[in-house]
């Protein structure tokens, strides 16, 4: 068996995992499945692409940082894109979700997120067309690293970026007052208010983190594969599967779940054929729900 699937799996898993962090946080803190989360990914990617285009128009072409396929403009654009995506999530919450949440029926919010998902996607197709596009058309040479595995410099950089971001979010959740407030709110919303936590501000932080990470995941897809309006929607099932596999509310769980699904998908492509790729996350999701519905890091409520 060719071990190349490990690298492919870790990369897909990183994209799924970064997205799943947002899914698991909105699920545990705001208590609804946000089906528009995938579209935050796509919007973040297109926003980043637009900023890259704008800097290109203003400052001319800037050479990529040697062995990578991208340069400073993409890195700066990614940071701006993360901010834009966070703001988009906040805006959507303000315009739509917060109002429906106030009426108190979770299923209505879920349906609204489905509608928002379609609207956001159509808007992207309208602005950017549905033709795939790329951050760079340059071709990178993959370096052999032993065991028959080859990896490109971009892939190494993005795996490192994922590791840094995941560690950062984990530290934020466990070591800061903001993170503890988020945990508190997900465990007992009424008690969170009693101990003085301003729910509205924690909700805002949750949206910003989820949106920003979705943007990074989208840009990873954009760099390694391609940019399409459907790119995020196609990640929705794997992201939910990862969040549920890891245990709702758990950041490390979401990332581990993402990696497991990414590796399983890549392995399945090699063993039984690419057409089964999409089925893998569905099968894993079903298996988890039957065998251990609380997930790997989840805890049964009372």
């Amino acid at each position, binding site marked *: 068996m060719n071990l190349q699937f490990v690298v492919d799996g870790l990369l897909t898993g990183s994209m799924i995992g970064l997205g799943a962090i947002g899914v698991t946080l909105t699920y545990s803190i705001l208590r609804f499945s946000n089906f528009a989360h995938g579209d935050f990914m796509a919007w973040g990617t297109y926003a980043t692409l637009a900023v890259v285009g704008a800097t290109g128009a203003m400052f001319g072409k800037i050479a990529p940082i040697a062995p990578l396929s991208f340069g400073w403009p993409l890195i700066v654009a990614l940071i701006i894109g993360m901010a834009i995506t966070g703001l988009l999530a906040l805006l959507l919450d303000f315009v739509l979700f917060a109002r429906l949440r106030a009426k108190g029926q979770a299923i209505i919010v879920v349906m609204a997120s489905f509608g928002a998902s379609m609207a956001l996607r159509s808007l992207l197709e309208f602005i950017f067309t549905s033709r795939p596009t790329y951050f760079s058309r340059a071709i990178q040479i993959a370096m052999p690293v032993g065991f028959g595995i080859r990896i490109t410099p971009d892939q190494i950089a993005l795996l490192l970026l994922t590791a840094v971001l995941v560690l950062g979010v984990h530290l934020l959740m466990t070591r800061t*007052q903001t993170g*503890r*407030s988020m*945990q*508190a709110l997900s*465990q*007992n919303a*009424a*008690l*969170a*208010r*009693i*101990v*003085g*936590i*301003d*729910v509205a501000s924690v909700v805002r932080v949750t949206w910003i983190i989820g949106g920003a990470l979705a943007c990074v995941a989208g840009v990873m897809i954009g760099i390694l594969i391609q940019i399409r309006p459907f790119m995020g929607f196609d990640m929705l099932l794997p992201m939910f599967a990862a969040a549920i596999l890891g245990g709702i509310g758990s950041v490390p769980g979401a990332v581990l779940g993402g990696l497991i699904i990414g590796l399983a998908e890549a392995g399945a492509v090699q063993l039984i054929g690419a057409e089964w790729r999409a089925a893998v996350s569905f099968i894993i999701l079903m298996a988890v729900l039957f065998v251990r519905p609380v997930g790997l890091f989840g*805890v049964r409520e*009372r």
Partner: protein
Amino acid sequence: MSETVLDVRDLEAGYEPGVPIVRGASITVSKGEIVVVLGPNGAGKSSLIKAIAGLVPITGGTVRLDGKDITAAPAHTMVRLGLAFVPQTENIFPLMSVEDNLKVACGILERRETPARIEEMYAAFPDLARQRRTVAGNLSGGQRQMLAVARALIVHPKVLVLDEPSAGLSPKFVAMVFDMLAGIRKSGVTILLVEQNAKAALAIGDRAYVLVEGKDRHEGVASELWNDPVVAELYLGQRRQASEKGSAA
């Protein structure tokens, strides 16, 4: 009379508009007192203190804390205003460590003050100090109550409000909880307490109110209320007969 900390006047409150559960209740709590609210099941005792804590919508009357009107203050601002509430159940964050349960409640303290304040709580509650890394959901019932109370005290409240702190505990822990409250009052904290366990609550209380159908119907010195015929008629009658029979046997 000493200075009033909490002043509740003609309070009306309920979850649904037009269906008040609290119907014109008035109580006051003075500095350093333990005040107990008693009453039969369904009298609205819990709703009364939840309304005071900002958790049940108030439709009439006023709540004043140290003279300041806090009737319309949202629940999450209460600790900053000086009112700390301990709910009856689900009063800890079960998946967080004991230490994180305390830390998360320190949001209104100065950051530098927090570690020292947590150590003060550990000194006051040595049981918690021994279990600071324990996930709070694994604590015993009595220790959970202790953590919930420590979490409320950590922010230096002007008044500590508790909803049936002895509910669901075994007799050993019930005694422990009331001892703990008596100790807390000695350290100068003002306490308002709702209790089903009237005898134990009156034993540590200074004054008590009897709430019937959402209204305060009677008020008196705690130690005298136990033998007050009006109270017996309002609420305590059967229960006291039962407990006297029990102690005679």
